[in-house]
């Protein structure tokens, strides 16, 4: 089990902040290692091994927070960074018209490590590169494939969290993912296909996550589909029933539920950049967000899900909590500060991209619970509709209501059966209306915890790693073909 490496420097920084007047301080050390391999048309275009070690200090003074981050682990560096955090908090307090409530009081002493079968670093690099070269080669099923890509990402992060309330938390986290994509180019058109999902398959775990993705086994099909899309008819426009593939449902959750239910966003903390939300605390228990088929939960304990940890980045213990229960809005993603404003306890949804970044609310693992019908049964009862898979375009307004998604591939549905391939499928809607049109969700056999490695939020901008477990689902009377209908 991982040992505490940074306890001595942590105590020095906490003491420095205390001496400068901070009422509460925490410090988060991270030793992060990330490796990316990317193959493009037979060439290994990326083979990188990045290591970063540093710490971020949060200091609370007179109702204001200050955050400073540094990579200087010397005594002088620790003192300077801790002092800077306090100075920043004091600068904020000096112009504050409103103040945060009291400092945190929780205390945890614990250790955690992501369960893995094979650490990526234990798999010979040549073996890892060879897997991706083979998968990429298989994408070139037709001469119309202009670009084949295969990639893997592996993160190993050692985190240590210390606070002036006595918390000491050590976590060793593994996150891994991989994918393939093919770009087919025709005379005046280009079509792409990606697998698995739209960004690959990303989970908490080791190299077994890459092996489970079955990249090579699916590569020829993905290449052929990209080529066939060049000849496929345009997806029709109009109001119709649709079935969304699991990874697209995952993104739909991410954009139109996950971000909408971030309590910091609801409170206006993201107003100038990633926006606000159509939700507010008065709607808890009152807003019918979706149909009674729709239950969405935060579960940062879900084994293998991309954002699973034991403690978040302000030292709160992971829990499972409901956000939407049988269609009713019942909860938000929260931090300690924000939860307190609505009389609740945090559900440990606070993460930072790295030691450099201030922790903020993230949707972490936000899961749509599976339904009770086999995947194939979703097509039943649809006379004229479209089955849509793999996102390539996503946009939603800054209140999280009006959305438009475009996907890589579709198939028409005629009289309950999947028919011919369609290109450029798009659909649009308004969040609660759309989720209330959901009348069936596939069962747990097609339920996948889809990781999202590139969620943007905050200023300075942070890239978060989230996960939305989902199964394919059916939605009635949706506007399809937007963007191509004029």
């Amino acid at each position, binding site marked *: 089990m991982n040992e505490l490496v940074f306890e001595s420097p942590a105590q020095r920084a906490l003491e420095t902040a205390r001496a400068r007047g901070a009422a509460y301080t925490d410090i988060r050390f991270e030793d992060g290692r990330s490796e990316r391999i990317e*193959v*493009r048309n*037979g*060439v*290994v*275009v*990326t*083979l*990188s*091994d990045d*290591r*970063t*070690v*540093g710490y971020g200090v949060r200091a609370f003074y007179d109702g204001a927070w*200050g*955050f*400073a*981050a*540094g*990579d*200087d682990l010397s005594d002088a560096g620790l003192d300077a960074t801790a002092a*800077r955090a306090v100075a*920043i*908090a004091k*600068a904020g307090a*000096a*112009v*504050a*018209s*409103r103040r945060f409530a009291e400092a945190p009081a929780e205390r945890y002493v614990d250790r955690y490590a992501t369960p893995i079968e094979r650490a990526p670093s234990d798999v010979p*690099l*040549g073996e890892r*590169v060879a897997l991706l070269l083979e998968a990429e080669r298989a994408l070139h099923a037709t001469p119309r494939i*202009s*670009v084949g*890509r295969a990639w893997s990402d592996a993160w190993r992060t050692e985190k240590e969290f210390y606070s002036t309330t006595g918390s000491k938390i050590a976590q060793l986290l593994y996150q891994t993912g991989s994918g393939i994509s093919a*770009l087919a*180019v025709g005379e005046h058109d*280009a079509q792409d296909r990606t697998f698995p999902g739209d960004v690959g398959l990303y989970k908490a775990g080791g190299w077994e996550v890459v092996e489970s993705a079955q990249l090579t086994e699916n590569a020829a099909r993905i290449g052929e589909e990209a080529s066939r899309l060049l000849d496929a008819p345009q997806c029709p426009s109009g109001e119709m029933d649709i079935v969304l593939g699991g990874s697209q449902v995952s993104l739909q959750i991410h954009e139109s539920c996950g971000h909408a239910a971030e309590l910091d966003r609801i409170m*206006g*903390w993201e*107003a*100038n950049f990633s926006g606000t939300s159509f939700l507010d605390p008065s709607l808890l228990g009152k807003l019918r967000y979706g149909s009674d088929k729709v239950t969405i939960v935060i579960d940062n304990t879900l084994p293998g899900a991309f954002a699973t940890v034991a403690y978040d980045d302000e030292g709160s213990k992971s829990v499972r909590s409901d956000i939407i229960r049988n269609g009713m809005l019942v909860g938000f993603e929260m931090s300690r500060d924000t939860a307190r404003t609505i009389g609740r306890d945090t559900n440990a949804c606070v993460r930072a991209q790295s030691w450099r970044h201030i922790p903020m609310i993230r949707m972490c693992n936000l899961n749509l619970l599976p339904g009770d019908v086999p995947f194939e049964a979703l097509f039943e009862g649809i006379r004229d509709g479209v089955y849509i898979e793999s996102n*390539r*375009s996503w*946009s*939603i*307004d*800054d*209140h999280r*209501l*009006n959305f*438009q998604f*475009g996907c890589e591939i579709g198939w028409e549905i005629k009289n309950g059966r999947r028919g011919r391939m369609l290109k*450029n499928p798009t659909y649009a809607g308004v969040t609660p209306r759309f989720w209330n049109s959901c009348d069936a969700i596939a069962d747990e056999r097609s339920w996948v915890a889809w990781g999202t490695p590139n969620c943007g939020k*905050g*200023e*300075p901008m942070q890239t978060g790693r989230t996960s939305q477990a989902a199964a394919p689902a059916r939605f009635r009377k949706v506007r399809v073909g937007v*963007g191509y209908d*004029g």
Partner: protein
Amino acid sequence: MDRAARESLAHKILALTDRGENEVIVFAADDGLTRFTHNAIHQNVAHAETTLRLRTVIDGRTGVASANALDDAALAELAARAAAMAQLSARDDVFPGLAQSTAAEAPSGAFVAATAQATPDLRARRAAEIFGVAERNELWAAGYVKTGSQGITIANSRGTLASFDGTDCGLNIKQNAADSAGFAEWNGNDVGALDAGRAASIAADKAVRSRAPESIEPGEWTVIIESPAFGELISYLTDHFGAQAFDEGSSFLSEGLDRKYVGENVSIFDDYAHPLAPSMPFDYEGVAKQRVALFERGVAKNVVTDSYWAAKLGRPNTGHALPAPNSEGPLPTNVVVAPGTKTTAQLIAETKRGVLVSRFWYIRPVDLRRTIVTGMTRDGTFLIEKGQIVRGVRNMRFNQSILAALGNVEFSSEPARSAAYSYSSVVPAAKIEGFRFTSSTDF
């Protein structure tokens, strides 16, 4: 870390390498950002760091390692990791060797000492000015004030040595009322020129004037898109001018260069030395950046290259490499759109019926080759009638080909620097005919 220390460190790392060709990037940053909402600071941060990036190429096989530890053991480990990666990589027969660069001079105004020395107290005072404007107008402000300095040194085993120090600062303000909002931004290098009160007033005026917005019908509209919105929109076109997208077929330019794609009044350049945005004069291989015409009088003239794509396509190296490794190839990063002759006020005055857009949100490509993108208006959208701004309108979604938009465009004479996490450009406001709004909202 100053220039001399970075150069010394770069040479020390190169001395630790013993195989193939090697390139070191030393990047030192010290940044602060004070973020606020509801007229109070809620996220107040600073970050100081020096990072190292080592690219090792052995017989056409490339490995890259990075680190931020600077002790001798860490440097030796960095060199060993890059070499180990390179040995296991696949050979790329196109690799032309690392670049040999000539000196490039930093443009005037790129580094301002006062910006580098800015304190959290200074940022808090600027934020307080913004709060004052908001309170006087019964609004609440959200946004940030930021200051920072960055130093970079690039050195390689072929003798390339390039160093640059720059500063940047800026503010971003959204003034909020119960049913409206207004936006203003300012981006520069000199914190002394950062006028928080002026920007806060511009945003407040928009928020006040767009109160009680009304709906308008989606459809084809004449729009006047102010520079913060146009800067974001145009960033989804300029990536098409990268050599990799051009070669692989995902760019609209794959139909060919030296063709007229947009109106004759459209000229777009990549220019690191523009006075509104003086920046790094070389790319991430240390090669001097060229001023490149992307569109000249509506005709697509060039794609931007780095050493790899210049060799692969047999084109000149324009000095647009991103840090290795990257999967996007070279890209234009200092986009400048040539202005027109009329002020934005004149463009509005000449509009019989149209929409004034202050800012866009969440633009995403719908169809790459046809350059169709979708996105939303936000933070100050107005109806123009008979040359006057008459009221605020509720926000709308658009689906629009950027090339088609640039076929019916007139630019203002007032360029401004627009920037966000993914782009920085110098752009005027743009008046576009036949802009397609496809749906509306209730806010």
